[in-house]
C-alpha cells in the first residue's frame, strides 16, 4: 500500500513535470532521442534480475537501467564502435589520473537533482560503491582495486578509505591500490552510479528503486511482471549542468511487460500492439519477419560468448579430462540450429570484436569417440550430473541438447529448468545444491578483455551470492597474469597478445565449453521511427533512441 501510494504520487508529479518539460521542449539531439514523446510498450521474455543499479547484472537489467541511473562517466550514445567510447556524464570531465596511475580525480557537475528533487552529491558516489559490497553485488569484484575496499567489504572498516569526496565542491578522489587499465570503463558502469543515501545500504531496492539521475525514472515496478519508465522531471538539471553526452528521452513513457511467449511477442509487434521486443525474434519466426517486415527489422552485432559452465570444484568436472571431453563432444552447429542460424561457432573465451581475440580451436569436433576415450581415461567415480538452464525457449532447448549429450557420454544427467528471472541468482548462489554444469552467456560490460576474464574466471569472483564465476575457476597463475595485465593499458605493446594467451591458457584447462557468439535482432512496430532506434554494443537497445513517427 505504501509503495502504491508513493508510486501514485511520483506518477502524478512526473506526469505534470514531464508535461512541463515537454512544453519547454528540448534541443538536444546528440545520440539517443529527444523526440516528440508518446507512450510505447516493450516486451521482455525475462524480467530484469534487479531494478537496482548496484545489483543488476544481466543484459535485460542494464538495457533498462542504463537510461535511468547515470554514473560519473558513461558510454557515448552511438551505434557501433563509437558507442564503446567512455565520455563524461555526471562528472565534468574524464578523470585526471596521476602519473603512477593510482589516483583518479573527478569533479561532480553542480546543481543536479535526482528525479525526486534530492540534490546529487559527490558522497553519493561513495555510497554507491559501499552498497556494492554490502549487497554482495556480482559487480563488487571490479572495485576491489579501490584502496580500503576489501577492508570495508570484510567489515574491518566503516568506510572505503580510498574514496574521498567533498559535497560542497563536488570533488571526488579515488585512490587505487595499483594502476588499473579498465578503471575509466568501471566508472561508466551502472554499479558506480551515484544514488541517494536514503537507499537501503545492504538490501535489494527492486520494489522501491532509488530516484533516477537519467532521462527516465521508474514510476511503477511490479517485479517480475511489469514496470513503467517515464521522463525524469529533474533531468533538465543534469542537462543544464552540461551533461551533453547523456541522451534525452524520445518518448514520454515506456511500459515493460514480461511475456514468456516470444512468438506471441512477434505477433504483437506485427499487429502494433507492442512496439519492441528486448529478446531476439525466435528462430521459427525469423525467416517470416526478415522477408515480410524488412522495413522494421534488422540483425544486430553483439559482443558475447555463449558457453556451458562446469563446476571445477566438484566431481566429475574437477578432472580436466572430463571438461575437455565436453568440449570435444559439443556440436556448435547443432546449437546454431537451435538459435535459428544466429550463432557464430566458437570455442574460446573472448568473442570477435574484443581486443585480444585471436581465433583458435583446441578441441576440434564434434568428436564423440575422443570425448568417450577421455572420459574412460578419467573414469570419474561420480557420474551424477545436474544440468541447469532457464526457461527461455532457446535456452531450454540448449539444456535438453546438453542433457542428451551428457547421457550419451555415460553420465547420469538430471536437467533443471528454472525461470529466467531467477536463473543467474540461483546458479550464482553457492548454497544452491548440485550446481554442476549448465547454460551461461556473457555480454561485454565494457570493451576490455578483463571484463570477460575477471568476473567470470578470477578466483576472487567466486562469491557466496550473485557470483559469475560459475565454473569456480581459480587458477593461481592465470589470476596473477590477469592482475598484472589489468594494471596496463590495452594499447600498451604486447598486452592484447597476452590476453589472447590467457584465453588459450583457460581453454587448455577447459574451464568452459564455449560454443557460440549470438547475433541479436531489432524488430519494431509500425508506429516507431525505425531509423532513429539503434542497438548499442554494450547496452543493447538504447531506450532514448525510441521515438514515434
Amino acid at each position, binding site marked *: 500500500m505504501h509503495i502504491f501510494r508513493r508510486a501514485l504520487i511520483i506518477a502524478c508529479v512526473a506526469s505534470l513535470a514531464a508535461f512541463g518539460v515537454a512544453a519547454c521542449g528540448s534541443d538536444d539531439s546528440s545520440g539517443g532521442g529527444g523526440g516528440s514523446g508518446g507512450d510505447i510498450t516493450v516486451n521482455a521474455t525475462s524480467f530484469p534480475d534487479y531494478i537496482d543499479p548496484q545489483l543488476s547484472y544481466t543484459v535485460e537489467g542494464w538495457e533498462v537501467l542504463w537510461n535511468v541511473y547515470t554514473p560519473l562517466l558513461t558510454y557515448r550514445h552511438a551505434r557501433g564502435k563509437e558507442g564503446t567510447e567512455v565520455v563524461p556524464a555526471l562528472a565534468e570531465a574524464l578523470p585526471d589520473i596521476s602519473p603512477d596511475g593510482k589516483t583518479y580525480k573527478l569533479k561532480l557537475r553542480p546543481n543536479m537533482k535526482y528525479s525526486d528533487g534530492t540534490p546529487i552529491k559527490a558522497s553519493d558516489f561513495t555510497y554507491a560503491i559501499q552498497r556494492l559490497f554490502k549487497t554482495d553485488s556480482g559487480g563488487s569484484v571490479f572495485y576491489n582495486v579501490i584502496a580500503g575496499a576489501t577492508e570495508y567489504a570484510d567489515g574491518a572498516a566503516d568506510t572505503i578509505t580510498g574514496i574521498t569526496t567533498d559535497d560542497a565542491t563536488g570533488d571526488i578522489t579515488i585512490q587505487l591500490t595499483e594502476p588499473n587499465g579498465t578503471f575509466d570503463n568501471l566508472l561508466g558502469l551502472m554499479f558506480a552510479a551515484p544514488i541517494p543515501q536514503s537507499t537501503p545500504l545492504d538490501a535489494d531496492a527492486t520494489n522501491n528503486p532509488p530516484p533516477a539521475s537519467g532521462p527516465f525514472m521508474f514510476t511503477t515496478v511490479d517485479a517480475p511482471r511489469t514496470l513503467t519508465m517515464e521522463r525524469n522531471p529533474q533531468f533538465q538539471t543534469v542537462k543544464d549542468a552540461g551533461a551533453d553526452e547523456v541522451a534525452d528521452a524520445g518518448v514520454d513513457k515506456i511500459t515493460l511487460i514480461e511475456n514468456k511467449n516470444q512468438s506471441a511477442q512477434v505477433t504483437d509487434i506485427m499487429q502494433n500492439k507492442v512496439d519492441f521486443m528486448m529478446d531476439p525474434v525466435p*528462430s*521459427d519466426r525469423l525467416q517470416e519477419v526478415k522477408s515480410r517486415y524488412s522495413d522494421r527489422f534488422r540483425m544486430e552485432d553483439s559482443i558475447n560468448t555463449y558457453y556451458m559452465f562446469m563446476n571445477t570444484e566438484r566431481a566429475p568436472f574437477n578432472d580436466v579430462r572430463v571438461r575437455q571431453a565436453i568440449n570435444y563432444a559439443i*556440436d556448435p552447429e547443432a546449437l546454431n540450429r537451435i538459435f535459428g542460424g544466429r550463432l557464430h561457432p566458437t570455442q574460446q573465451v573472448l568473442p570477435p570484436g574484443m581486443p585480444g581475440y585471436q581465433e583458435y580451436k583446441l578441441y576440434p569436433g564434434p568428436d564423440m569417440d575422443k570425448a568417450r576415450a577421455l572420459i574412460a581415461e578419467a573414469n570419474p567415480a561420480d557420474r551424477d550430473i545436474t544440468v541447469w538452464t532457464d526457461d527461455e525457449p532457446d535456452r531450454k532447448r540448449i539444456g*535438453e*541438447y546438453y542433457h542428451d549429450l551428457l547421457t550419451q557420454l555415460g553420465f547420469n544427467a538430471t*536437467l*533443471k529448468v528454472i525461470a529466467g528471472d531467477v536463473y543467474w541468482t540461483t546458479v550464482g548462489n553457492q548454497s544452491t545444491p548440485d550446481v554442476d554444469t549448465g547454460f551461461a552467456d556473457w555480454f561485454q560490460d565494457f570493451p576490455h578483455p578483463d571484463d570477460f576474464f575477471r568476473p567470470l574466471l578470477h578466483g576472487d569472483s567466486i562469491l557466496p551470492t550473485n557470483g559469475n564465476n560459475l565454473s569456480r575457476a581459480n587458477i593461481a597463475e592465470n589470476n596473477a597474469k590477469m592482475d598484472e595485465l589489468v594494471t596496463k593499458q590495452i594499447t600498451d605493446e604486447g598486452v592484447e597478445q597476452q590476453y589472447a594467451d590467457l584465453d588459450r591458457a583457460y581453454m587448455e584447462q577447459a574451464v568452459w565449453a564455449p560454443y557460440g557468439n549470438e547475433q541479436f535482432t531489432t524488430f519494431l512496430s509500425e508506429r516507431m521511427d525505425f531509423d532513429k532506434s539503434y542497438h548499442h554494443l554494450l547496452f543493447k537497445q538504447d531506450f532514448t533512441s525510441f521515438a514515434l513517427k
Partner: protein
Amino acid sequence: MVAVPEAPPGVPESQVQGRNPWYLAWLRLRRNKVALGCGLLFVLIVAVCLAAPLWADYVAHTGPNDNHITDTVLIDGVETDIVAPDGTPLGPGLRGRYLLGADQNGRDVMVRLLYGGRTSIYIGLAAAAVTTVLAVVVALLAGYYRGWIDAVLSRVLDVIWAFPVLLLGIALGTALAIGGLKLGVIAIAGDSIWIPILIIGLVYVPYMARPLRGEILALREKEFVEAAVAQGMGPLRIMVGELLPNIVSTIIVFFTLNIANNMLLESALSFLGAGVRPPNASWGTMIADGYQMIYTAPHLTIVPGLMIVVTVLSLNVFGDGLRDALDPKARIRIEANDAGRH
C-alpha cells in the same frame, strides 16, 4: 445389500434368483454403447502407449529424449535435414521414422507422443489413486467420528479447497522443483514424476472427500451400523467392513472421472513448467515445447493436444456411463429433477 429383482407376473418369488449388483451394473453399462466404446478407446490408447518402447526400438530407432539436430533422414531417396539450418524441424509424413515429424531438438514426435502418453496416463492413474486413498481415509474418519475430528479434517479440506487448483499446483510444483520433497524418511527428487503425482493427488482430495464424507455421515445413522456397534465391533472394523463397501460404487465413479481431471491438470502444470520436468515427455510438456513454433510447425502442438482431448473425453464419457450403471437411482433422480424444471 443384494438387489432382488421383482418376480415377473406368474412366477413365485421363491423361484427368482438374486443377481450380483456388479453384474446388474455391467448389464446396464453394456446397454450404453457410447460409454462402452469410450472405455474401449481409453484401453486402446493405454495399450498403444504401453507399446512405446516397441515403436521406439523397432520402427523409429530412437529414444524419446535422443537429439538429432544435425542428423539427416532418407526421404524419397533424398537425405533431408531433421532440423533445417534455420531451425525448422521436419514435418509429418508417411514413414516409419518421424511419422509425426521432429521437434526443434530433432526428437521423433511419434516416439515422444507415445512415451508422453505413458507419462500422462501414469500420472493420471497414480494421482487418482493418491486422491482416492487420502479422500477415503479422511471421509471415513470425519464421517464416522464426527465431532472435533470432523471439524478439523473439514477445515483442512476447506483450506485446500479455497485455493484455485491450478494456482496451488503451480505453487507446489515450482517450490518443489529445485529441492524436491523431504519429509522424514521420504525423499523425492525435484525432477521425479512423483512430484506432480503427489501435487495433483493432493489438490483434488477435497473434491472427492467431501461428497464421500456426506455419504458416510448418512450411512453412519443406518441401522446396520447400530447393529454392528451392538455386536461389539470396533470403529476400524465398522469403517472398513461396513461403511466402505457401501461407498465403493461412488469411489469407482469418482476414481474414473478423477483420472481425466488429473490428466488435464498434469498437462496444464507441465505446460506452465510446474509438472513433468524436461526433457521427459508428457503431452503437456510437448505442447509447451511446441507452441513457440505454432506458425511453422503446428503439428508439435496439435498432435499432443488432440491426444489429450480424445483421452479425456473418452474417460469422461465412460465415467458418466459407469456412474449411471452403478447408481441408476442417481440418474432417475437427475432426470426427475430435470423434468420438474421444464
